[in-house]
């Protein structure tokens, strides 16, 4: 009895899946086929700004104002996926341009992806050959963010030792000096309490 119920349930699921598939197929059938072509340089040097181009067309001609993504297949630890390195939007001729910085050596298998829209179906194009990236430039920049003279850049005058240490962080040093000076003032007045007490002991009223 239980087995029979399961079989009926499985049949119902299969029918529902088939109906859904036919509906989504009908929707996809309403979209026109799009074609992507892709141009990328054959080689680049590490740190170079690489410009890539894609052309998106359909049977009716160029597809304009369509967003495309330039991606590189990437793996990291136990994960993998397409990393977006540049984005572009097609112009009047259906051409989109993207620029990215080559940040790892080896061969990069670039792809361009059009995710599709209500009118055109999604499509992908892969570069005819991987782009070879060579070089050994150090891309790491130690000082990021804002640069304040004297705060995180070397001050002029080439002070050394403790003076350099202090000068290289003068704003923080100034604030700390102000606060600790006020502490010192409070300690000074505290010492006056002791002095006044001793004076009162020496000259009892």
């Amino acid at each position: 009895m239980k087995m029979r119920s399961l079989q009926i349930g499985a049949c119902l699921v299969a029918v529902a899946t088939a109906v859904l598939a036919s509906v989504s197929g009908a929707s996809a059938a309403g979209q026109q086929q799009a074609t992507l072509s892709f141009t990328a340089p054959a080689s680049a040097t590490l740190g170079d700004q690489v410009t890539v181009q894609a052309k998106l067309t359909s049977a009716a001609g160029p597809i304009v104002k369509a967003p495309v993504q330039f991606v590189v297949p990437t793996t990291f630890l136990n994960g993998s996926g397409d990393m977006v390195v540049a984005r572009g939007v097609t112009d009047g001729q259906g051409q989109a341009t993207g620029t990215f910085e080559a940040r790892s050596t080896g061969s990069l298998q670039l792809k361009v992806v059009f995710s599709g829209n209500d009118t055109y179906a999604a499509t992908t194009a892969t570069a005819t050959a991987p782009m070879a990236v060579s070089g050994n430039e150090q891309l790491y920049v130690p000082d990021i963010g804002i640069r304040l003279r004297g705060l995180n850049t070397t001050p002029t005058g080439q002070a050394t030792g403790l003076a350099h240490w202090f000068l290289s962080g003068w704003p923080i040093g100034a604030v700390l000096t102000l606060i600790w000076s006020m502490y010192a003032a409070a300690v000074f007045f505290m010492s006056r309490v002791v002095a006044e007490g001793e004076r009162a002991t020496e000259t009892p009223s």
Partner: protein
Amino acid sequence: MDAVSSKGMQYTDQGRPVPAEWREDLENRVLAPLAKTTWRYFVWIGFLLAIIALAVVMYIRQLNNGLIETGMRDRISWGLYIISFVFFIGISHAGTLLSAILRVVKARWQLPVTRMAEFITVVALMVGALFPLIDLGRIDRIVNIVQYGRWQSPLVWDLLAITTYLTGSALYLYLPLIPDFALCRDRLGATTSAWKRSFFTIAAAGWKGTPGQRKALDRAMTIMMVVIIPVAVSVHTVVSWLFAMTLREPFNTTVFGAYFVAGAIFSGVAAIIILMAVLRKVLHLEDYITKNQFMALGIFLLAMSLVMVYFNLSEYVTTGYKMEAGAPFHFHDLMVGYLAPFFWGYIIGVIAPVLIIAFPPTRTIKGIVTAAVFVLVAMWLERYIIVVGGFRVPLMPYDARAYAPTFTEWAIFAGAVALFLLIISVFVKFFPMVSVWEVVEHRGPEPDESEVVHHPVTPRMEAPVAPEVA
């Protein structure tokens, strides 16, 4: 400064009478714990020391085996230690800040509890500052932050801010203690042990209450109460920057500085209320710490609850509206995902005080203490959400990892809480927990309920009086 009438009656600086027997009773009550110790106290200290001993054993184990003893791994590399660090620094915030602000504006109602508030600051800072060291794994590497530290690093800012705040808070705690140490020296000198007598004599700094001494002490306190306010605000701002300057989705918000300061005051006030209730009961200070102090701090807690609700609303609405990068993952995690129990627990803990304190039937001492417990738990959960929630958002295409503190972490956390309570318990035996001289000179006996003037919100309209007819 106190005034004594020709009949011997003392008056506060606001002209309120201070009966001699009331002052005598206040001094006796406040000094009683310094003079005698019961067996219960030693049992309590023994209990705390046992927990601390367990924590030390577990820490040595962590030192030997490394941070593999903890639940922290490469994906979630901040855990219970950093949560506890932010929590304790938060508690430390309200004490000195509250005391300083109220002294600056010459408020009087808080005087019986300022000492406790200042103690919480110093003790919580001492305990909180231990956690980054415990989190280091290799404690010897602490030298590196001094040797190789860079001004650009928020860790260096944090080290400087906490050191500065701890020094300032200790100084700010000590200054108003001087006249009370003199009181201990004069009242307990003959009855207490020789070493304790020496301690009181040295700590009293030769205080005799001369006009010159009062003037010098007043100046020192004025300087400290002014400087400690920005220092206190800066400390928790810098703690927030440890997160806000890290490139992680939930930390990418400009509101963190103000949010952390508000959260710190919120949890700090709750801690003061709880400690106040405990010490009031244990030290039998019911006549000096009355409903007035609980009501005032309760209303403040209520206001801070609303401020926290506002901050949360502001943060989640703006971030949730845009849903950039890792925000959808983080929101799912908070609302219905891995961190949902923590998040909703936090929300309940923030709203509960509003419901408890806003309505007169529950606006009692017990109600306010209950609200404070809710707040402390909520703020601990909030720190958990910030730290663990921030690290759970994947920066690369990998699965989010879970984090659960291990027994080692829980034992060390329990040890830190025990250390916090131990230091306060020991301090109670050396320092008067109420600033006697300030209460006598500026506050006097607490007004009864019947004496408290309740100003109506709108002026009452007097009925027109009919002119007398001759």
